[in-house]
């Protein structure tokens, strides 16, 4: 296998390492076709990040779509059966409308899905793999963890109208305590219940501070059950050495229609948006008339393009200017030597618009250094 760090980009390197990681935990590769029947996506439009899909008609008149998502196909191809869990990973291009440019974009995505009769072990395993995936990309990462079961239980206890519930979720997502307070006050929510939901937007500090403050506020059976699951998950992550990089944060992925349990979002220092997102999405499976549970996450590898820890700041290590007065055999020998040292471009004039570390000249079999940077 090619392991030369000099030429492998950070996103390519991540793909190799992630595949290796996932297969070591028994996940099999899931390969899908570039297009799927449009019907699958249109029925689950709300699940997709953007509802615009590239469609075309095939020769039989069927409407097909360039896949905007991988999870839906994986669910469709899995089966429900007791004590059975299917573990799959993928590395695929998906086609979505970019939120910033409003044009279609090809996005390289890697991720995994764990579908079936899940136990707490599988949930912990997937969250651990998410943390490990981020750690492979950079040592400066944060994995935010929330629990949709907990958020829903608190919402249920407060009994907000549908419209207000939607708004409250948006404010949670924005860590927006001022508007959340105003909303709860306008709905006449009692102080004790108000504080509970507000605490999700305002609690800061270490994860153990957040959890101990929050734990004291939990009252209903559902709240306590979800809170306990979240707490044990943090204990497991800490015991596995991820305590410093994981945080309880309830602004993560507040989509109550799909997520039912743990929800995660991962960040890498230097990349302005989240590079990893996922969670337990039993509600999507129920919507698709399925009995199983499922948890998974995706990593947006296209975001790693601008993030390169190994970027040296030049395109070529050495440029070797050739005067045409050296015999080709000697030239190939020098080229061989310099390519082994770090790379060489043999040319007759200095290449325009390219940066190099060293500029050399070869004339009548003699090499001289003209310029050296860094």
């Amino acid at each position: 296998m090619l392991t030369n760090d000099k030429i492998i980009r950070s996103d390519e390197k991540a793909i190799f390492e992630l595949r290796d990681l996932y297969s070591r935990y028994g996940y099999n590769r899931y390969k899908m076709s570039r297009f799927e029947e449009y019907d699958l996506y249109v029925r689950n439009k709300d699940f997709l990040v953007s509802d615009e899909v590239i469609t075309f008609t095939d020769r039989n008149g069927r409407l097909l779509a360039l896949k905007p998502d991988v999870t839906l196909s994986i669910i469709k191809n899995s089966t429900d059966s007791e004590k059975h869990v299917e573990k799959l990973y993928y590395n695929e291009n998906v086609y979505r409308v970019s939120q910033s440019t409003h044009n279609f974009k090809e996005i390289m995505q890697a991720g995994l899905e764990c579908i079936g009769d899940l136990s707490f072990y599988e949930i912990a395993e997937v969250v651990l793999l998410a943390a490990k995936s981020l750690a492979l990309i950079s040592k400066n990462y944060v994995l935010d963890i929330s629990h949709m079961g907990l958020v829903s239980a608190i919402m249920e206890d407060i009994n907000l109208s549908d419209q207000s519930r939607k708004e409250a979720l948006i404010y949670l997502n924005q860590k927006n305590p001022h508007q959340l307070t105003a909303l709860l006050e306008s709905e006449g929510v009692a102080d004790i219940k108000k504080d509970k939901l507000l605490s999700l937007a305002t609690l800061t500090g270490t994860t153990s501070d957040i959890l101990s403050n929050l734990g004291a506020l939990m009252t209903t059976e559902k709240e306590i059950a979800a809170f306990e699951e979240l707490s044990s998950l943090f204990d497991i992550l800490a015991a596995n050495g991820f305590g410093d990089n994981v945080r309880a944060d309830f602004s993560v992925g507040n989509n109550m229609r799909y997520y039912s349990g743990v929800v995660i979002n991962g960040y890498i220092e230097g990349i302005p948006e989240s590079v990893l997102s996922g969670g337990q999405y039993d509600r999507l499976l129920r919507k698709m008339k399925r009995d199983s549970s499922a948890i998974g996450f995706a990593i947006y590898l296209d975001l790693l393009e601008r993030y390169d820890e190994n970027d040296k700041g030049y395109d070529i290590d050495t440029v070797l200017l050739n005067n045409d007065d050296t015999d080709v055999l000697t030239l190939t020998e020098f080229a061989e030597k310099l390519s082994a040292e770090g790379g060489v471009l043999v040319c007759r004039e200095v290449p325009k618009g390219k940066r190099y570390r060293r500029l050399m000249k070869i004339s009548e079999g003699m090499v001289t250094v003209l310029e050296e940077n860094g």
Partner: protein
Amino acid sequence: MVNVALPKGRLGEKVYNFFKAAGFECTSIEEPSRKLIFENPEKGVRYFWVKPSDVAIYVERGAADIGVAGKDILLEYSPDVYELLDLNLGKCRMAVAAKADFRDSASKTLRVATKFPNIAEKFYSSKSRDIDIIKLNGSIEIAPILGLSDVIVDIVETGTTLKENDLEVVETIVPISARLIANKSGYKFKNEEILAITEGLAKQLEMSK
């Protein structure tokens, strides 16, 4: 170092004074100059002036860790950022205005002139009202006078401009003020610094009440 995007102009100056009162001053910004970037390494802040409508973009894309943007911009562009604090500055409202003698007839599509097509669209779709949006970039007030639109959706501060153009507010859509926003990733990696600034500003707010 926390990068702070401030909105250029009158509001921005008020906002900077707020940061200063909270203990995050930067004397170079107070001297008259054409510079756009100012730094106080001691306090760990770097301020820069940008067009008010661009603040959210700088923050969403991580060029600034935090910034101050009007709620109008946040509602119009829905940037994926945290909204940490309502600074209660630059208070105004987003409103529907029309000519004083305007009579709304639900039997016709309502023609709406605005700089904020997304806000207008959302507001009317929540009322299931069919509208025709006319996106303008300025002088919105003359649209109903010239018959270009039936109503306008725009920011109303004192209402003087409306009055002078023989328009009046029909309905308030949402109150507007300046908000402290943060980049989601920056918030994770400069958490303590950003929280210190947020708390400092919140204290100032409390005191000014």
